[in-house]
């Protein structure tokens, strides 16, 4: 489920991960789908990552990657974390749990050891409120998702070609 963009140095790869059937755990997927609908040039959006090994495979030849995941760290719901992994260690406490085989923190660590971390890797984490079974984000996190979407668009702006506003 990847956008078919040609990869070059200016392409930004956005990866939304999580479990869309556990409400706020699906915020990464929710944002990725919204980004995909925008069909922006130079933005490659992926959303159905099954495990960290696939994540490593996906980002290993990329220059600029943005990952969005839910966080459960007992801080206030809606708290947004942004980590520039290329500059600073990713605190495992925010990304240690996973609905997959590995956590994002482990993927980052393994990738570092294999020397295939992207030159620029930004990880957004959003503290969820409701991780129970269900397909919709909680109202509170829905609003935060819109804000994070804007942050990512701002972050990606220098690489995005002018949009066609014909409609």
């Amino acid at each position, binding site marked *: 489920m990847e956008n078919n963009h040609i990869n070059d140095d200016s392409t930004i790869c956005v990866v939304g991960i999580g479990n869309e059937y556990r409400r706020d755990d699906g915020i990464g997927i929710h944002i990725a789908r919204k980004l995909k609908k925008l069909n922006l040039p130079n933005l490659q959006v992926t959303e159905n990552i*099954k495990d960290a*090994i*696939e994540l490593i*495979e996906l980002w290993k030849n990329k220059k600029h990657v943005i990952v969005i995941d839910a966080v459960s760290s007992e801080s206030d719901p809606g708290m947004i974390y942004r980590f520039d992994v290329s500059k600073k260690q990713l605190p495992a406490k925010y990304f240690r749990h996973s609905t997959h*085989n590995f956590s994002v923190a*482990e993927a980052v660590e*393994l990738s570092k*050891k*294999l*020397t295939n971390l992207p030159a620029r890797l930004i990880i957004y984490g959003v503290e969820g409120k409701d991780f129970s079974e269900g397909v919709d984000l909680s109202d509170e996190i829905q609003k935060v998702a819109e804000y994070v979407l804007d942050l990512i668009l701002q972050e990606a702006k220098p690489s995005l070609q002018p949009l066609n506003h014909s409609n």
Partner: protein
Amino acid sequence: MNSKSQKNKVLKVDYLARVEGEGGMLVKIKGNQVTDVKFKIFEPPRFFEAFMRGRDYSEAPDITARICGICPVAYQTSSAQAMENILGVRVDGQLRALRRLLYCGEWIESHGLHVYMLHAPDFLGYEDALQIAEKNPAIVKRGLELKKIGNELMKIVGGREVHPINFKVGGFHRTPKEDELKQILPKLKWALEASIETVQWTSTFKFPDFEQDYEFVSLSHPDEYPITEGNLISNKGLNIKVEEFEQHFTEEHVEHANALHCIHNGFGPYYVGPLARYNLNFEKLTTKAKKAAKQAGLGSKCFNPFKSIIVRSVELVYACEEAIRIIESYKRPEEPFLKLEPKAGKGSGCSEAPRGMLYHRYNLAQDGTILDAKIVPPTSQNQKTIERDLLNFVRKNINLSQEKLTWQCEQAIRNYDPCISCATHFLKLEIERE
């Protein structure tokens, strides 16, 4: 882990790492006697057998595949076979070959993951694969590449890597064109060489001296190494058709596990998985797989469960070679599936999941509605043998340090590549009313 005194020891691992699902281990020692051994499965029950009741027969492969993200093809194959047996059809020729090819992909990705990321750290004295990557990144890259190639094969044949969507009772929704399959041949040829190197690498590990008199049980087929079908045989004289399974094997509930323990009636615990397949079907391996085994110092029989990591690697060689063979002789079938008419009946299916044989049995109503389902996964079957291994291993090594003994007990559990998520499908529930 904690220790009460020199005389009384408790080896306790609350959450086993590097296994699929949630389980723990408890070993109690008093003086020089082992007083209690438990392989504890506390992952919540999942009730899949109950979910199946009232669903249409055609839904079984897709629903049961959700039991496991590592071995969904095993669930699809065993459930589809059971349905096809009830409906009186046999998937044969190139459709059968395609199913076997998809299954090879699953063996490659699952064995690649377990050998390199889950089990090898035990032998190398590392906590996890991250530490292997730090010391020897090339090794981990080889393991990840093998897993990736297995996944790619599953995607080509099954439509996606995890929980393939192209599988159906009677065949496939769509069959791949010859060219679609051939594109992965260069990668599979690399994977074959990498698998041979894997056998050589794992054979250099140090193995505890521990051989047991197991009853190995696996499928057996007259013409091929068992993956998708065959009779059920053992080294203690069992030779039955799959539909006779429930006359010879009984599942029982124990208090400390949310997974049923399975025993062979009149024989007791038994062993399923790569070591069982290897011991019972060595002659059906390819020349290259046999040669790799021989160079690794394995004979045609192996009774040391710690060496299952070498055997699993030999099966990687086999799966790669078999996949290449199937692709090179593939001719796209005219129809992707057989036409089916629902009817009432009872039927069973069995295939060899990466970690051992997986049995399914269903009863259908006249319109194809599922009335009853039974699923016996490999980890469920191995539980008692795992506990017996722990008991005998601790007895034999009771003077090892607490730390070393706990480490090797965890390693002994991982010999079986247990999939706890698969096993916890049932909870015996009794309601008393006054």
